[in-house]
């Protein structure tokens, strides 16, 4: 069959449904079988890389955290690590632990959303109420920790904005064991052995490890095919090196294994949070040079005024820093010419290579599976388009 005789083109929906932002797939179909999918992205391109060239790193944080609203802290974390690497500073232990706790909370939130989206695409809408309720609870917890919503530049160069409120540790551990755990059990009851869910996801969207690696996959999407690659253990940043955990892997590489890995990782993130809470020392949470606060003396006041006005002067150089965000490797490539503003700031989105591999993943699958595959990859277009 040639493409001119029997195949036809179809718009496989603008895709706002799965909470991933806006994008358009043009599919070439032969009957119900997908021959080719051409992903059109750029609907949420905001030129953040260009904006970063005109702001100081502290101002830039506000842009960076808008890259991915479904996984709070992941993008800012990478950016802050890049700035710190360029400046050559290491943050206080306590701040590092707080960052790990926040990053893992963000991972739980993102994985819950991704699971609910995948479930909804396969027709199980009853997961949404559970995860939405839990997301509300997580936002309330992050409100208590950060003082506002999670997008308030809490993680910043030199440490974190402020210390944890008293009793936060107890509240967090109570939340993990008394609230999150029952919800996780309920989600697993609904999905893991659900015959309809399995028939829509098992052996759908399969990819093997060498191909996934060559296509630039990272994170859950790569580990689901059997590659053992997790930046938290492979290139430890913050205090991940001191925590005992190992990223789970699956070998099937289909939608179901990606779902299972997200569920595993939520349980594992709970463990990491518990361990980080236990090991968290007392002390400072931000380096004195980077602290912005009300002060009495005039010299300190002028210092903080300068920090606000001019920002932190970056030394000339270039640096690449990456974190294991819930979507995969999120990297920041920062070039500075010695002024207060970055000369170039490039973001390596985790979803960018995955979105372009969608064509390979959907080859010869059914039309109805395209959305399931896209949802199982957890693509967030705001992060892809930048």
């Amino acid at each position: 069959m040639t493409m001119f005789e029997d195949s036809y083109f179809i718009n496989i929906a603008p895709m706002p449904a799965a909470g991933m932002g806006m994008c358009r797939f043009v599919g070439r179909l032969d009957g119900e079988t997908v021959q080719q999918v051409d992903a059109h992205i750029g609907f949420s391109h905001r030129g953040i890389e260009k904006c970063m060239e005109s702001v100081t790193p502290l101002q830039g944080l506000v842009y960076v955290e808008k890259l991915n609203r479904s996984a709070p802290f992941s993008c800012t974390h990478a950016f802050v690590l890049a700035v710190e690497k360029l400046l050559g500073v290491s943050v206080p232990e306590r701040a590092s632990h707080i960052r790990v706790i926040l990053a893992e909370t963000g991972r739980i939130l993102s994985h819950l959303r991704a699971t609910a989206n995948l479930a909804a695409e396969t027709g199980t809408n009853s997961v949404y109420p559970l995860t939405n309720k839990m997301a509300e609870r997580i936002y309330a917890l992050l409100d208590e920790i950060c003082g506002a919503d999670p997008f308030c530049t809490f993680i910043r160069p030199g440490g974190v904005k402020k210390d944890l409120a008293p009793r936060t540790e107890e509240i967090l551990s109570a939340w993990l064991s008394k609230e999150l755990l029952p919800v996780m059990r309920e989600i697993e009851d609904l999905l893991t052995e659900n015959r309809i869910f399995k028939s829509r996801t098992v052996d759908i969207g399969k990819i093997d490890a060498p191909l996934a690696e060559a296509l630039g996959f990272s994170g859950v999407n790569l580990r689901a095919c059997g590659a053992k690659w997790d930046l938290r253990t492979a290139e430890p940043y913050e205090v991940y090196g001191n925590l005992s955990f190992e990223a789970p892997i699956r070998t099937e590489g289909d939608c179901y294994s990606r779902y299972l890995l997200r569920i595993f990782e939520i349980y594992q993130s709970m463990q990491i949070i518990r361990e980080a809470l236990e090991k968290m020392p007392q002390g400072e949470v931000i380096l004195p040079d980077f602290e912005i606060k009300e002060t009495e003396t005039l010299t300190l006041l002028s210092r903080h005024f300068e920090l606000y006005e001019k920002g932190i002067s970056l030394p000339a150089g270039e640096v690449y820093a990456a974190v294991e965000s819930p979507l995969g490797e999120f990297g920041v490539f920062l070039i500075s010419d010695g002024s207060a503003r970055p000369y170039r700031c490039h973001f390596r989105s985790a979803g960018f290579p995955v979105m372009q591999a969608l064509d390979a993943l959907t080859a010869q699958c059914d039309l109805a599976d395209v959305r399931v595959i896209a949802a199982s990859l957890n693509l967030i277009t705001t992060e892809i388009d930048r």
Partner: protein
Amino acid sequence: MPAFVYKTQEEYGQFIRLHFARQDIPEQTIVSGILTLKVLRAALPRVMQFLRDDPVCRFTQLTDMTCVHYPDQQDCFCLIYHLLSPMLGRRLRIKLTTQEDVPVSSVTAIFANADWYEREIREMFGVSFEGHPDLRRLLTYEETAFFPLRRTYPVQGSKRLIYDEATGQCVYVPRLSEENRPSGVKLEPEKP
């Protein structure tokens, strides 16, 4: 040959350079912990193929690819490739410089995911690629007649849309030069 023979990044860089003529990889540096190789434009496909297939290198993933614009230099575009070897846990940075009218050979045949990266670099910087299968615009609309990520392009754009009362239509007019300052605020003179 096991990878641990090469203990330091320098030795590793020298090992890679041994396989090519001296002028193909004229420079090796270690920038913020990552080995950085400067590669001649003509040698790029050969170097990339070697790095991917050699059993000691095994850089099987092109993690990232981007471009930087240096308007003062003659070779004003610097392409930067970040390679990763998940098996050996190594990273590598490849750099090469080019000009606006000199095409760079595409690496899509070696790393499939270079496809979109090269499309993006072409639309954002105006660097041309040779042998790329499909160079449509990726993030911006087809009528875009400028290269937004060049340093010479102002942050707020070079044109603005106004309503012309005489004709009753919306028209594009050039922006005033005062507005072309970064972020539109009056800035302190920056440190050199």
